[in-house]
């Protein structure tokens, strides 16, 4: 059971972090007039096209204690990123970033400008407008971002294997455990993990599409 619990711990942590950084990032991309923002958009969407192993490889290099950043984190803060749960979280946040940011960005871009302007004319700051007017009206987009980021993190393999390795209880996620068990010819355990993952993923997506079916389009 341990790999499964670890998987859900990771997915939950990653989703919370992604929501916190995803909303401001999506807001910036949606409304900024900065002429270099397409570069940021490109970077956010890179994980959609790169093989997960490529991202995992670079993370492994960057955070390796032999190199600057990894060395700095380890010697000053005692944080070891590679082959640790922290590493899994960092890798997954980067890898699932577009799944959170892109739906929220689309929701924000389709939000009527007239409602934002009405709020500004009433003396409300952009932050208050975002919190009390925009976010409550783009719930379907927020829900899409949350569910997609969560589900995608559960389904990860390449990035987490590269940066996390295969340490039981620390970095051995369900997807990696299945691979392990198959290699060891333990088809029964692998099958059990696989079945549980299928059932849980199916349920999450089913609930999501059920909720979105009921969500009324306001505009």
């Amino acid at each position, binding site marked *: 059971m341990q790999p499964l619990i670890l998987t859900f711990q990771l997915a939950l942590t990653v989703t919370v972090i992604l929501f916190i950084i995803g909303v401001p990032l999506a807001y910036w991309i949606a409304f900024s007039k900065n002429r270099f923002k397409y570069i940021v958009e490109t970077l956010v969407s890179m994980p959609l096209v790169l093989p997960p192993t490529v991202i995992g490889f670079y993370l492994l290099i960057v955070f390796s204690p032999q190199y600057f950043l990894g060395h700095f984190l380890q010697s000053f803060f005692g944080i070891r990123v590679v082959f640790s749960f922290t590493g899994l979280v960092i890798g997954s946040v980067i890898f699932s970033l577009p799944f959170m940011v892109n739906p929220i960005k689309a929701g924000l871009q389709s939000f009527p400008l007239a409602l934002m302007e009405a709020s500004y004319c009433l003396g409300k700051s952009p932050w208050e407008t975002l919190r009390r007017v925009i976010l409550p*009206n783009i719930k379907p987009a927020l829900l899409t971002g949350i569910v997609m980021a969560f589900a995608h993190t559960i389904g990860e393999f390449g990035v987490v294997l590269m940066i996390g390795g295969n340490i039981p209880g620390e970095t051995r996620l369900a997807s990696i455990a299945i691979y392990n068990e198959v290699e060891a010819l333990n088809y029964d355990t692998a099958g059990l993990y696989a079945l549980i993952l299928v059932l849980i993923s199916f349920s999450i997506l089913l609930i999501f599409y059920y909720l979105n079916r009921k969500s009324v389009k306001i505009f």
Partner: protein
Amino acid sequence: MMIKIQLKKEMHTPLGKEWLDLDLNIAKGEFVAFFGESGAGKTTLLRILAGLDQPQEGYIEVDGEIWFDSLHTIDRPTQQRKTGFIFQENNLFPHMTVRENLEYACGDKKDRHHIEEWIAVMGLKGLEDQRPDKISGGQKQRVVLIRALINQPKILLLDEPLSNLDIRSRLNLQDEIIKVYQKTKITTILVSHDLSEVFKLSKKIFVLDHGKIIRSGSPLDVFVNNDLSGKFKFSGEIMEIQKDGVLNILTLSIGNNLTKVVATDEEIEGLSIGSKVIVSAKAFNPLILKANP
């Protein structure tokens, strides 16, 4: 003098680039209208006043406060200008009830006690807990009007606020706007291409054409055409055209009233329901009756 406006703003119209070029003053508590075809720059002017658009150069002063000054790079943000802006399309917050929309507008919790009063004055009692999609277009614009006023803005900006309503609600709401104006004496700037509306509501009119003011003055000064010599002149809108024998009977909405006049086929050529017309008559012996008080 309360509002000073000097500005130059480039506009992109279907006919190419044009400049909105204005220099005018508006007195405190005045109800003025900008009248002109679409694309003349009316909406742009209101957006600039609200701080939603910036002119290339200009100076805007309201009540002694400088809102915009391109020479000294002053541009007071929309939030600090506090204008009551009413747009053409309804823009109530769809996820909030009528009351929540109004509460959101109150800067301060203690302003909330005005809500009940306004709801009663505008005849919205019983609708407080409805979402905007459950009330009529006229009711929505009433809520929008209260929402704009409850924050006690310095100026009320009306951008064709009634153009999406049917004629009945439009006439009703014109009366409400007059009522609100008399109650608050708030400086109001109306923008419209509806002659009868401008005529009925405002005391002073600026006629805007391709970004420039071509005429200004009282409604009568501005709209009474010199090539007409009738003694009575009203502007109105055609509600109905009925064929009756060789003549046509037009039902017109003039001010608050509906009236029927006859017209020949030649006269109605090019006119249709909704057309704006001027009715004039040479009156040699008009009947004058005492109006019921």
